[in-house]
C-alpha cells in the first residue's frame, strides 16, 4: 500500500460520520481510533487541564484516556452521545489521578462541613455579568484554574463535561446535595476571585 491510498483513506475517515468511525474503532481499526483521537484530543486535554493542576499531568492523563480507549470503546453502547461518554471516561481518569495523589479525599472531606447549604451574605459578589468580552473569558479561565481542587473538579465536570449532579456524585462518591453545595461554593469563590482580580 502506497502513501497515496493511505492518505485517501484518512481523508475518507475525516469526512465519515461519527457513528461509522466509532463502529470501525470498536472493530479495532487503528485508523478509526486515530481519527477519534484527532477529533477529541483537544476536548479531552481541556477537561484534564481544568481538572488537574499541571499541564504535564493533564497531558499524561489525556494520553492515558486514549490508550485505554482502545479497549474501552468496545463498551460504548451509544446510549449517550459519544463526546459526553468520552468526557465521562476522561473525568474518571482525572479523578483516578487525583485519588492516586491522595488529594481527592479533600473533595469528600471538606464538603461535609457545609452540606446543609449556606446563604450568601449581602456583601457577596453577584453572579457574573451577562455580557463578557474575550479578555474577561480569559480571566474566568485563569480564575477557574486557581480554584481549590474540591471546588474546581465539580465545577468543571458540570460546565465543561456537562454532567448532571448525579453523575458528578457518582464520579466523586458524593451525594447529589453535596455536589450542589460544592458547585454553589465554587461559583461564589470564583466570583470572589474575579471581583478581587478586577479591583
Amino acid at each position, binding site marked *: 500500500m502506497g502513501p497515496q491510498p493511505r492518505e485517501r483513506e484518512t481523508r475518507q475517515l475525516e469526512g465519515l460520520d461519527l457513528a461509522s468511525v466509532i463502529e470501525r474503532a470498536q472493530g479495532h481499526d*487503528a485508523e478509526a481510533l486515530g481519527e477519534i483521537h484527532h477529533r477529541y484530543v*483537544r476536548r479531552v486535554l*481541556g477537561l484534564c487541564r481544568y481538572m488537574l493542576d499541571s499541564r504535564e499531568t493533564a497531558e499524561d492523563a489525556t494520553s492515558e484516556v486514549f490508550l485505554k480507549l482502545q479497549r474501552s470503546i468496545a463498551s460504548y453502547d451509544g446510549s449517550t452521545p459519544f463526546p459526553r461518554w468520552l468526557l465521562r471516561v476522561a473525568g474518571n481518569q482525572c479523578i483516578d489521578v487525583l485519588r492516586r495523589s491522595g488529594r481527592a479525599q479533600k473533595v469528600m472531606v471538606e464538603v461535609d462541613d457545609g452540606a446543609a447549604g449556606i446563604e450568601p451574605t449581602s456583601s457577596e459578589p453577584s453572579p457574573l455579568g451577562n455580557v463578557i468580552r474575550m479578555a474577561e473569558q480569559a480571566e474566568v479561565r485563569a480564575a477557574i484554574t486557581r480554584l481549590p481542587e474540591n471546588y474546581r473538579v465539580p465545577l468543571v465536570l458540570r460546565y465543561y463535561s456537562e454532567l*448532571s*449532579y448525579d453523575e458528578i456524585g457518582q464520579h466523586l462518591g458524593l451525594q447529589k446535595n453535596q455536589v*450542589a453545595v460544592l458547585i*454553589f461554593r465554587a461559583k461564589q469563590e470564583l466570583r470572589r476571585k474575579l471581583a478581587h482580580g478586577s479591583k
Partner: protein
Amino acid sequence: MECYSEQICEVFVDGELPVDEARRLRGHLATCQRCQERVDALRSENRVLSESLRELPDEEASLAAVSRWRLSRGWGDLALLAAVLALGGIALVLIDDLQIPAALEWANPFSVNGFTNLLFNVSDYIAQGGTAMLTEYAAGVGGVVLMLLLGGSVLMLGRRWRRRQPGLRLLIVLLALSLPSFAMEHRHGQFVTVAANETVDDTLLATGDTVRVEGVVNGDLLAFGQTVEVRGTVKGDVVTGAKRVVVTGTVEGRIYNFSQSLDLEGQLGHSLYGFAQSLRVDDRSHVGEGVVVAAGEVSLEGDVKRSVDIMGSGNADVSGSVGRDLTVFGGRSLTLTDTARVGGNLSARVRELKDVHIADGATIAGKRDIQLQVRQSPYSHPRFYFHQAIWFASAMLVGWLGLVFFPGFFRATTQAVGSGWTSLGLGIGVLAGAPVAMIVIAITLVGFPISLMLLVVYLTAVYLAKIWVGAFLGWLLLKPAGGTKGDWVLGLLVGLLIITIVGYIPYLGGLVRLGVVCLGLGAFAAQLYRASRPGMTA
C-alpha cells in the same frame, strides 16, 4: 411567599431541582421580580462559564496554536544546538551531496556509520599524538572540532544563561570558556574516575581514554574520551563526546550526547539530545522528559515520559513506552513490538512501507501517519532546470561583475587555479581550517566581529570558487589568443557549463564539486597572499 435561596435558584437553573419543587419555584418567579432577576443572572453566569471553558487556559491555547510541541527550554537548547551544528557543518555541507551506492556505503566516510568511525578513530588518533593525520582528515576533523567545541560548550553552559538571548548566551559562553577563572574541575588521564565514595561539587571536565563516574557530580559532567561510563549520579547535565557512552546510574539533568554508541540503562531526569550511531534505551531505564536524537540504530526498550523524535538512517525498534508522540524521520525500518506503547501520535517517514512493522499488540493512542520518504529524481522536475538556470545565470553575472570591478584580482585568481595540487591542498586547508580559525578568534570575544567578517569572506569565497575554476577551465580549453573581457567571460561560460554538468554525474559529481571548491579557495587564498605582498605581484 418567601423568596428562594440563591443555592436553590442555582440548582433550579442547573435543571437539578425535583420536578414539583421546580414547578413551585417557577410559579414564584412569575410573582417575584427579585428572584426572577437572580435566576436570570445565574443563567447568564452559567453561559459565561460554559463559554469560557470552551477554550483551554491561555498558556495552552496559544501554545497549541503554535504547534503541538511545547517550546520548552529544551527546545530552545535544541534550536541553539541546531544553529551551532549548522555553523559547524559548513565544512561538511559540500560533501553532503556525495552519493554512494549502497554496496559501497561502508566505505563512505560521510555516512552516519562511516562518519562516526572516522570521527572517533581520528580524534582518538590525534589524541595519541598523530597530529600529522590532521592534514589528511582536515575536512572531517575541522567539522568535528567545531561541532564539539561549540556544541558542547554552548549546551553545557546554556542552562545557566537560559533566559538571555541565544546570541548573548553564545558570547557569554565563549567568554566564559576563555577565562581561566571558570569554576570547573578538570581531570585528565588515561583512566579518569570519580570513585564511589567521592563527590565533585563543581562542573567536572574529564578527558581520557576511559572516564568513569561512580560517585556523585553535583555540577555538570563534560566527558570526552574513548569510553564514558556514568554509574553514579550526576546532578547537572552530561555532555559527552566519546566512542562509547554507558549510563547505568542517574543523570538528573539532560544528556547532550555525541558518541558512536550510547547505552542508557539508568535514570535520566530530563531529556536526551544527541547524535549516536547506535542508541539503546534499556528496559530498566526511565527518561523524565523526551528524546531527540539523530541516530543510526535505535532500540527503545525503556520508558520515555514525553515525546521521542528520531532522525535515523537505520533500524528503529520500539518495545518500550513513549508518553507522547513518536516521530521517526528517515531510516530503514521501524518496528513496534507487542509491548510498545505510544501515548500520542505515531508519525514516520520511511523508505519502504514494507519495512514498518507494528505488532497487533502495540498500543498507539493517537493517529498513525506512516508515509514514504519519496526520493524523486530531481531531474524529472522542471523546477530543477529552472533553479539551475537561475543558479547558472547568477554565477555568470557575478563572474562578469567581478571581472568589471576587480579585473586584476579575478584574472590572477583564475590563473592561480592553474597551480593545481598546490591550490587543491591549500584549498582543503582553508576549507577546514578557516571555520576553526574563526571560532578561535571569536573565543577571544574582541575578535568576534572579525570572525563574523571572516565568515562572510569565507562564504563568499566558497561561492566564487566555481567561477574562478570555471573561468580557468574555459581558458584552458579555448586558449584564447587575446585576453579580453569577452574571452574571459566566454571561458567562464564554457567552464561553468562543464562543471555544472559534471557536477550532476552521480557519485563523481559530489567529489568534483568538492574539488572545485577546494581549488578555487586555494587559488583565492594564494592570490590574497600575493596581493598582500606587493613585491610579489609582479
